[in-house]
């Protein structure tokens, strides 16, 4: 084991790191855009809306990402109408194939996480919004989604870390992201330990940053719930909080 080699390799991995960051960020953004409407469909009571989403999340969460990636990268070129269509310009590029597979996979997991959040919104809040005459769109935008996103945030933070780690699979379809460049350098230098450990250190650093940012954001969103704990007597604060906001029987269904 050569410690100085670990440090020497770090700058060589910078390009790979940028591609990893690009893949992860774009997949997360695309995934969020797909997951938001799907999670609303998933929680609807109309069969035509929730069954297709159920099938989608079941298939994408039930198969390995590697299979999905290979199906898009190798499989799509086999279908004639795709090859002859304009979409082929995109689908023959490994970068776009990785993005498509990653965002669809990430969206499937995010849909289920967000669905859990929506389900956990107290029904009394929704009832109150209805009683105030809010339409479905307004209710969803102003009451359900803000609460659901706050409840889903811890699970979503985990999912973002998983997406960062999943982006390493792009190296299997010739993309030179962090893992890919590490493999290339290993093939050139024959020192697997040092190079892979450098790459692992970079991943670990990014993971810690992501968890830290999300933890901070969670605390920021939960500010209004902590205001009583500063009085020093948290037990008393807890009791007064219950007195101030009485829980009606039947208002909490879950």
């Amino acid at each position, binding site marked *: 084991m050569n410690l100085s080699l670990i440090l020497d390799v770090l700058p060589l991995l910078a390009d790979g790191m940028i591609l990893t960051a690009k893949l992860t960020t774009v997949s997360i953004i695309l995934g969020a855009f797909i997951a938001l409407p799907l999670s609303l469909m998933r929680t609807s009571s109309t069969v035509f809306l929730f069954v297709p989403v159920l099938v989608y999340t079941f298939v994408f969460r039930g198969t390995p990402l590697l299979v999905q990636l290979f199906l898009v990268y*190798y499989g799509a070129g086999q279908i004639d109408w795709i090859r002859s269509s304009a979409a082929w310009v995109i689908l023959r590029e490994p970068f776009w194939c990785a993005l498509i597979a990653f965002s669809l996979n990430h969206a499937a997991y995010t849909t289920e996480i967000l669905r859990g959040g929506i389900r956990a919104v107290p029904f009394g809040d929704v009832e109150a919004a209805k009683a105030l005459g809010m339409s479905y769109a307004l209710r969803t935008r102003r009451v359900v989604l803000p609460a659901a996103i706050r409840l889903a945030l811890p699970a979503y933070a985990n999912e973002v*870390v998983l997406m960062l780690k999943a982006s390493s699979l792009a*190296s299997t379809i010739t993309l030179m992201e962090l893992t890919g460049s590490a493999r290339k350098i290993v093939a050139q230098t024959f020192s697997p330990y040092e190079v*892979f450990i450098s790459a692992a250190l970079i991943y670990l650093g990014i*993971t810690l940053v992501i968890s830290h940012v999300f933890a901070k954001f969670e605390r920021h969103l939960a500010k209004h719930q902590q205001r009583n704990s500063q009085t020093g007597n948290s037990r008393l604060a807890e009791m007064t909080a219950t007195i101030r906001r009485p829980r009606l029987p039947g208002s909490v269904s879950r």
Partner: protein
Amino acid sequence: MMNMQGFADQIAIGALTTLQTAGASLVLGIGLGLCGAAAKRASSRAIRSFAGAYTTIVRGVPELLIILILYFGGTAALSALFGHYVEVDAFSAGVFALTIVFGAYATEVFRAAIQSIPAGQIEAARALGLSRISIWLLIILPQMWRYALPGLGNLWLTLLKDTALISVVGLDDLMRKASLAAGVTHDPLTFYSAAAFVYLLFTSISLVALAALERRSYRGLRTA
């Protein structure tokens, strides 16, 4: 129906290897997870921080990279140790890597499960003069399964899918057999779809089995 062009038996052999790899990693990983959870509760600060470092590092690094480190690094380390080139076979390296990964996540699941056991029970056991080992065997282990099962179930589903990554270092699992068949026949769509179907089948069976296990773990317990 898909035309498997004579590769159906190869796919079946691959599927069996996938199950063996996942099964072996599950058993070893549960053992490692229990050790990890015990280490996180240890009174020695050094052991606690070692366990903490293990779970933080493994959960922050991609599984594929861990597999590559243990496969190529393991070969290099063993070769250096014995003084001549030693080949690590993909199955051992794969099971080893997946065990390390599964163990890290299982440590957290078990730690949370142990915390759900009322502290009064463990205090009562101490007051009755039970040894540390008896407390583990009689109080903690029999009850923690109930709390750990949902988390373990999710980890098993992840493990099943992570076995596909070992195909990258050459294990003849379902994924690699599908790749080989796709390369020979120039028909990746059929074979990767077939692989996806088999994985989906395994996941579905696991889901049904896990639901039954969870029901069984709550037997004899009053539930609302």
